[in-house]
């Protein structure tokens, strides 16, 4: 039987000239592709999320969702971030723009809606300049979601000599196609003053990552890195035919969620947190800002990070990390200059009530180092998955049980780990998650920083 495939109507606008002038391209087309679903007014789609105290609530994600159709819009550009010792670094990164384009104007034929859409796309591009977030916006999806991810490239105002395209590489996506794999050498990438829409059928659950793959060594070191996870279908169905096991993430009464379709509840969790390891080489970033040759061979990170922050910002008492944009405060805003901006809206605080199962999605996108991560105070974590596969023989859900408990684990660049901490019986207090590569417990010359955060048991 041949299936008639729904093809979303496309909204595309031509913006003939980029604000600060794009060199060379004969066409420059920003476009945001998101299918029309659910009737004339796209009812039922939530529109963006609210930051809580300047921070993205744990494992939330910005997207438009209607049933299993999910849309997201990001810009890829440059920006600034503040390290835990106060140093401002020039960075590249993605910024979420999904909430800027209002769902009501999508896929409508009237001139009013088209003009509103044009205006909003302009706003997205304007705010995207110098808009990089560290890390990139986290992405949370469900198994079998149709995910439309639009990437818009507004260019880089601080480096007008760079004409770099950008891509999205969905790291670990099973059975990928070349077109949407995001590797410029083997595929396509999007030039400045244009947009591309990636599409993924999220057939498999697990913990993944996403990052730009253009000039990977440079763009990844500069910070175009983010986390991504796909919730399993078991969240909605529960297991064993027992409706009481349906996950809370799907409106049920069971655990908050499962990591995989384990069939027996062994990957259930009550609290989840993504721990994305990374790092910056301050010398490399300064060279990029100063339009100097980039020292690839000498690359060595001196600002190790979790979720784009070094300790103590990982557990910051002020949840937002505000960066001083100084002379660049006119860029990236719609109206008035904005000197201080929230550039790193993901903290690394883990908090649970005793007895809860805490899922750590422990991932690493550092371009030069693996880290060993250790828990203090006798906390143990059970490795239930790695590289988006359940930790069972042959990577199959009915494979031999390979789960094992540990208090430390080595995390290579490019790998993801699903670790569940059972906090039953542990005294209330702060426990520490840190790297045993103790020279990376630092923010450049500042001792007592870097890859460290707290797990608070209440």
């Amino acid at each position, binding site marked *: 039987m041949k299936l008639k495939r729904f093809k979303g109507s496309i909204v595309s606008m031509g913006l003939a000239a980029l604000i600060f002038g794009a060199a060379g391209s004969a066409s420059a087309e920003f476009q945001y592709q998101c299918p029309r679903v659910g009737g004339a007014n796209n009812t039922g789609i939530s529109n963006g999320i609210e930051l809580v105290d300047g921070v993205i609530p744990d494992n939330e994600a910005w997207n438009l969702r209607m049933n299993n159709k999910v849309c997201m819009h990001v810009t890829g550009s440059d920006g600034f971030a503040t390290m835990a010792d106060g140093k401002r670094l020039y960075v590249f990164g993605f910024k979420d723009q999904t909430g800027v384009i209002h769902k009501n104007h999508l896929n409508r034929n009237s001139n009013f809606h088209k003009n509103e859409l044009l205006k909003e796309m302009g706003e997205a591009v304007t705010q995207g300049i110098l808009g990089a977030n560290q890390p990139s916006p986290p992405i949370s999806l469900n198994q079998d979601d149709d995910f439309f991810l639009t990437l818009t490239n507004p260019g880089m105002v601080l480096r007008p000599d760079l004409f770099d395209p950008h891509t999205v590489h969905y790291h670990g996506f099973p059975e990928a*196609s070349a077109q949407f794999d995001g590797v410029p050498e083997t595929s396509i990438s999007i030039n400045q003053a244009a947009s591309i829409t990636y599409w993924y059928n999220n057939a498999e659950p697990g913990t993944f990552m996403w990052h730009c793959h253009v000039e990977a060594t440079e763009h990844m070191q500069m910070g175009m890195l983010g986390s991504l996870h796909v919730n399993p279908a078991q969240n909605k169905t529960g297991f064993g035919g027992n409706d009481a096991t349906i996950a809370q993430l799907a409106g049920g009464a069971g655990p908050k969620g499962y990591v995989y379709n384990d069939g027996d509840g062994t990957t259930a969790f009550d609290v989840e947190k993504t721990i994305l390891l990374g790092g910056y080489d301050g010398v490399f970033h300064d060279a990029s800002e100063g339009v100097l040759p980039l020292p690839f061979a000498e690359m060595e990170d001196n600002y190790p990070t979790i979720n784009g922050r070094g300790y103590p910002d990982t557990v910051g008492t002020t949840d937002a990390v505000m960066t001083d944009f100084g002379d660049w405060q006119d860029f990236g805003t719609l109206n008035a200059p904005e000197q201080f901006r929230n550039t790193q809206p993901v903290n690394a605080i883990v908090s649970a009530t005793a007895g809860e199962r805490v899922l750590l999605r422990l991932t690493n996108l550092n371009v030069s180092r693996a880290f060993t991560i250790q828990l203090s105070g006798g906390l143990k974590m059970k490795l239930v998955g790695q590289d988006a596969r359940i930790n069972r023989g042959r990577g199959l859900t009915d494979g031999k049980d390979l789960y094992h408990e540990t208090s430390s684990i080595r995390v290579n660049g490019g790998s993801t780990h699903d670790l569940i901490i059972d906090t039953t019986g542990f005294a209330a207090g702060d426990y520490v998650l840190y790297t045993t590569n103790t020279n990376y417990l630092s923010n450049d010359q500042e001792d007592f920083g870097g890859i460290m955060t707290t797990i608070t048991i209440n």
Partner: protein
Amino acid sequence: MNYFLKTIGTVAGIVAAGMFWAATASARDISAANGTGVNGPNFDLVAKWGYISSPDGNTIYTWGYANGTGNMQYPGPTLIVNQGDEVSITFTSELPEVTGGNVASSIVFPGQTGVTASGGTAGVLAQESQGTDAPNTVTYSFTASQAGTFQYHSGTRPDLQVQMGLMGAIIVRPADFNVARTAYGVGTDSDYDHEHLFNLSEMDNDIHLAAETESWKAVASRDFNAIDTSEFKPEYWFINGRNLPDTVMGDNVPWLPTQPYGSFVRAHPGEKVLLRFIGGGVDGHPFHTHGDNLTVVARDGQLLSSAPGQGADLSFSRNTTDPLPGSTMDGIFQWTGKKMGWDIYGPVADFPHDCNDGDADNFDDVTWEWCPDHDKEIPVDMPSLLDMSYGGFWSGSPFLGHLDALPPGEGGLNPSGGFTFPWHSHHEKEVVNFDVFPGGMFTVFIVEPHSEPIP
């Protein structure tokens, strides 16, 4: 099942069209026949000095194993034996002359048991050869009792000599290899269609310059032992002794006479690729396969099996493996395009084709098309041609076996319209050649359409 598939493509005026009636079978072994290995069980290895090329224009002074009177090569010749063979390797050092002979060297065989040696002089780890003057040829002997992937490397000052290039692979074929092509035997989940070596290593240019400088001195003044390897800072990263883009050149290309092994992998959908990983350097390298996860079935020549007859039931799935220095790892990779959500051969109206699933596994019996996605379209539009930048391996079309329009000068490295994916170290610092991007530990894997023969 026979059927007709028409391909249409235009690239700068070239029209490609083809028809086929049956899948083109393909198989690739590491073998003496295609120049990617040497058959045993008797071998003659000579340690020689020479030069290798890196794509940034450097020539790097290197020490490597030669097969008898052949060229020095990096990595050393891949030795192929059968399970149960009595292996005998004669070894002589023709490394630079020093007072008393040549630089002493030896070979160790991690993972082999009962290795004995005769001849030469006693070294710290193994019998050493100190040159061509008799009696300085060593003969190493062992029984290759276990199938799998192993390595051999220098046992003399390995901190210097392995870094200089003295390392290579050993493949022990299982006893039932004539029944089925597997790494560990029938029923071990290690059957494959294509076999490739992934010997990962790195070099610190300063150490090689120091050794080269020593070699220019008068014989009596040479002191290779004075070379300090403690500040190891590599600038070059290799797969099978080559850096990208040399990694995607063919095997035994004449312009790389001392680097005979490429790592360019091609397979049809559904075919299995055996990746024999070797940690041939001093660092671990997280190796990332785009396109899908692979299944790690063995480590250090040991099948990940809980009991005989269970197959690789302890195997695990990874998209980023971690062959550690000195260790080996075997992975099976298979790409099918399962559940991608769109028809990889394109819409039927444009590219007529059927999906015939006679054996009810949801895949076409010949092309491995995922039949539940038959005729499904890609639900997004591409940007206009001038809004994108292109890689040389981009065919112009999202569909397997098709080409499409590209701006002049673009593409061209993928004339059969396959899906191309990079396989590379995920410590991206290692994907450079001494400050030049791209380079290093990076190669390409192409999923070729079924009509495309893979030699």
